[in-house]
């Protein structure tokens, strides 16, 4: 398609791609985060999501600037370092018909915010949680992060003596219901995973390796473009099929595809690559992550999913009407109830 055709095309929501755009990026040229923002735009457009029904959240850091680079027509809140999860949790109670997307980084989620990251997962708040993972603190000009590899050499800091935190493992250990890893340099897979994440009923954690072209793009580092392209080991080829669309899986060889039906009726089709991988098996998920780490591979794809786990909101008895639209008369108990209360305390 030419650019002209792209602009004139509308989706089922009657919106064009331009309706999903954000402000121009102020991140570095070639930053992996920009590619992720583009795929968020593409995924939302293709899913016919109305931008006004999306809430964007972020913490602090380069990654956390990204929500301004997509979905300008969505409400957003750029909160505190590492504390986007709590901000999102409170806000999402306001209107359960809205979708949430949080964008965080490895500094934000693996260090200061590791506690909030895990507790949000534990509560299974329905939202998409993207970690733009570059293994470095970019906005403060290149310090080690908690996902930096052991032995990484950085100009000002020397050699990193510590083992990295694997956010996918942390997520699975915290009973995440959707855990995926992708690579900013693999837009096709990334887009499919973002679409699947939006359809997941629960927390959808996407750890996206996103190279920092300024402070940390050394060819032999796991957080670089070169390494990612050469060592990306996809678990499967992934296709997302929206709800109510006729499912056609002719593309896939008989017996080699695995389908996962999501709560909204959409489906993820995983085409078998080298291994027969079952993403609903939590033990296997942990095993492949450990193996990939030992073999220094960048394992990507849908690592774990449990599409039917209860969400945070299943623990509450909230009305159909959005909580933030309830009129005052629904919020203040009657004078008679106060009389009864006073009588009971007299």
């Amino acid at each position, binding site marked *: 398609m030419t650019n002209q055709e792209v602009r004139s095309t509308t989706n089922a929501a009657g919106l064009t791609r331009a309706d999903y755009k954000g402000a121009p990026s102020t991140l570095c040229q070639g930053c992996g985060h920009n590619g992720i923002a583009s795929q968020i735009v593409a995924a939302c457009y293709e899913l016919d999501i*109305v*931008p*006004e*029904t999306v*809430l*964007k*959240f972020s913490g602090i850091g380069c990654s956390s600037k990204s*929500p*301004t680079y997509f979905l*300008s*027509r*969505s*409400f*957003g*809140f*750029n*909160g*505190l370092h590492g*504390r986007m*999860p*709590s*901000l*999102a*949790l*409170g*806000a*999402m*109670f*306001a*209107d359960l*018909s*809205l979708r949430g997307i949080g964008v965080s980084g490895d500094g934000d989620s693996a260090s200061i915010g590791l*506690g*909030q990251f895990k*507790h949000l997962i534990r509560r299974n708040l329905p939202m998409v949680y993207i970690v733009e993972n570059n293994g470095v603190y970019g906005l403060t000009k290149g310090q080690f992060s908690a996902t930096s590899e052991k032995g990484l050499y950085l100009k000002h800091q020397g050699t990193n003596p510590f083992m990295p935190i694997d956010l996918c493992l942390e997520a699975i250990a915290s009973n995440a219901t959707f855990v995926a890893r992708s690579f900013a340099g693999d837009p096709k897979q990334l887009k499919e995973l973002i679409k699947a994440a939006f359809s997941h009923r629960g927390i959808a954690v996407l750890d996206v390796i996103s190279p920092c072209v300024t402070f940390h793009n050394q060819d032999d580092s796991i957080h670089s473009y070169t390494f990612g392209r050469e060592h990306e080991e996809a678990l499967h080829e992934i296709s997302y099929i929206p709800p109510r669309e006729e499912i056609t899986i002719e593309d896939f060889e008989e017996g080699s595809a695995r389908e996962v039906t999501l709560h909204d009726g959409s489906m993820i089709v995983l085409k078998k690559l080298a291994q027969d991988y079952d993403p609903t098996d939590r033990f296997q998920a942990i095993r492949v992550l450990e193996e990939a780490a030992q073999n220094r591979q960048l394992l990507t794809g849908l690592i774990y999913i449990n599409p039917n786990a209860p969400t945070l909101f299943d623990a*509450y*008895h*909230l*009305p*159909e009407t*959005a*909580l*933030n*639209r*309830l009129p*005052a008369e*629904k*919020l*203040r*108990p009657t*004078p008679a*109830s*106060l009389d009864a*209360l*006073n009588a009971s*305390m*007299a």
Partner: protein
Amino acid sequence: MTEVHPHLDGTPIVNDFCITFSTVNGSGSATANNILLRSLFRMGIPVSGKNIFPSNIQGLPTWYTIRVSKDGYLARVAKDDIVVAMNHATFAKEQEFLVPGGVLLYADDIKAPITRSDIIVYPMPVKKLVKDADVAPKLRDYIANMVYVGVLAQLLGIDLDVIHQALQYHFKGKEKPIASNFGVAKAAFEWAAANLQKRDAYRVERMNATEGYIMADGNTSAAIGALYGGMQFAAWYPITPASSLAEAFQEYVPALRTDPETGKQTCAVVQAEDELAAIGMVVGAGWAGLRAMTSTSGPGLSLMSEYLGLAYYAEVPLVVWDVQRVGPSTGLPTRTAQCDMTQAYFISHGDTQFIMLMPGSVNECFEFGWRALDLAEQFQTPVIVMSDLDLGMNQWMTPKFQYPDTPIQRGKVLWEEDLEKMLTERNGDWGRYLDIDGDGVPYRTVPGNRHPRSAYFARGTGHDEYGRYSEEAETWERVFARIARKFETARLVLPKPEIRRKEGARVGILAYGSTDPAIIEAQDQLAAQGLPTDYLRVRAVPFADEVYDFIRTHERTYVVEMNRDSQMWQLLTINLPDDCRSLRKTAHMDGMPLTADWVREAILAQEEK
């Protein structure tokens, strides 16, 4: 107190004394103490109860004091008229606090010596009475305290019927515990009638002074107030002495906030992983258009400081209840104080301002429960309510809760039609932080608004009137000055101070919060001793003009408070640099609620200088 104790000349002392119960925590004494408190209240006698307890679950000494006061004084008294000693470990110390002619009731298995000869002593056969009662052996320890309830009822003149009613109230009509507790109380009552020769002067008589009053604690009342204030979201993390505030939601939400039409609940409460998360959740909820609050104590408030700065600058409405305890650090976590005043005032980095409300009674905890939510939304800013352990956790007699006299105030929120109308009227010019009315308070939209112009990106980084990122010097200064203007608007509508005057007063007392009963009593005592004073109780920060006028129109003003460093004095001093020389520091913090004696003596000592 008079020099010669009334008892020593044989005069009965009616409805004017103080009882302290010395027990071991975890022994079930709370039931017994509450039964007595409520029985006296039901007899129409003004009464107050204070729990002095350790930060521990079982085995350490704990005290409970009940003051009955025909004159309606509810403050703590440092001396005891009657001591009920159930704990051998503190037996010797207990006796020191008794007034001459006072009464010592004690469990007769305590073998420690009686060191006072000027008191009246009644041993109680606690073990025997409990053993004879029809109670399962494992419950005996818990029910032992009902022995002193029965003995005191007999000695003081409380009808057993009243005790029974109080038990019915306490156990919400559950027959089994009512019967077993009452059985012990009755046996003890009968034992006392048959075996004790009353030699003391203390009696109670029915009055009619509690009509229109209820008994409640401040934390429960704050929670109920918030539910009447349309609270929609609360997040909290356990901390003494604030936990019972959020826990009260669990008790009252089903009855008060279940929509009769849908059967659904119109608010949500989340127990967060820490205070950092609790305030984050509340900021998110407040931004998204929910009336949101959290409750904590000093250490938790410290953890909330960064998000409070963001909420100030991004203009997010929310309410924080700080139920103060003795700090810094873990300090005395089960003791009361007013030592977070400067923390709350200056909380967060950068230049910030916060609305603070200081409830002075349990009834006012209810009122500020709903009013704080109104103020937060009206001014799109955090409101910090400064309660304390004494107010929050103790049972107080307080006027009945009054239904809010104004409808719920949601402030300037634009939904789809409102925004469309505004855009039409203003030729499409609307911005989240645009001061359209000139009062410093902008209009806000909230998530879920489907109007294509409604969305904005909230942030703690520099932004202009339209919510756009900006690092421009002029923009920062302009937006920041506008936010300051908002607080000048707020200052005029915040709860005014209450002033209690005395004829001919030239000296002022300024105080706030739970010290109110001690100040009132001290004010009356000072007047009786020839020093009339006017008393102003501050209820809100930023200070109303009435506060400044009061200070300017009194020769001296004693600023009485429960902290070491005279925190309210500090705040007044920086707000009133030219007139602060007349302010006198009168601060005291030892973890115990202030007494009128201390207030009176502290003021007299400075007057004599």
